[in-house]
């Protein structure tokens, strides 16, 4: 069970800020593929991975990173703070 979070327009496309996902996905990309297979709104949100960033347990990471032991995955567009 992984906590999956969405921010900014990713959140808007998915339609919710977070959800608990039952998954055996080995990597972030595997998780993305599982989600995209579910419903069109996931396909819309994950259409272009180069426009997205991912954080694992609140640390910026990569889409090919393993999910082993990870409790929280967050997807969002490039940050615009400051």
């Amino acid at each position: 069970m992984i906590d999956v979070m969405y921010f900014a327009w990713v959140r808007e496309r998915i339609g919710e800020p977070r959800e608990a996902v039952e998954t055996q996905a080995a990597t972030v990309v595997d998780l993305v593929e599982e989600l995209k297979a579910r419903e069109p709104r996931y396909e819309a949100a994950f259409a272009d991975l180069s426009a997205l960033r991912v954080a694992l347990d609140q640390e910026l990471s990569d889409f090919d990173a393993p999910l082993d032991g990870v409790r929280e995955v967050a997807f969002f567009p490039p940050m615009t703070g400051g």
Partner: protein
Amino acid sequence: MDIRVQTEPFSVGDVLDGFGKGSHDIGAVVSFTGIVRDTGGLTRMVIEHYPGMTERAINEIASEAMERWSLADCLVIHRHGTLVPGDQIMMVATASRHRAAAFEAAEFLMDYLKSRAPFWKKEFGPDGAEWVAAKDEDEDALSRW
């Protein structure tokens, strides 16, 4: 080191008047304040962030600045929620022995906060709402550090 993520406004004055007090080896204090501009008829801006990761990311950036420039002190305040033109979005302040370190550390903090702290801005104007896109130049700015 003082890091605040908040919805409330802040007074640069009150913050700076207390900043670095108590340390005896400060010769230079630099502050930066970011303000919402009313470009293109902007009526308001909503800043979303990632509670938990935000504090963690800013802490990491500020700790790196403290060490790299041997700062005497360092402060970051970043607001989230709804802001209107003229509102202060955020500020950083650095205190060090010499001016070059204080300036460089403040610019470093700003460059990293721009693209490495999990904030996202949505602008509301006459043509509707739009998420602010990250700029290539902001990402490029990191390469100088």
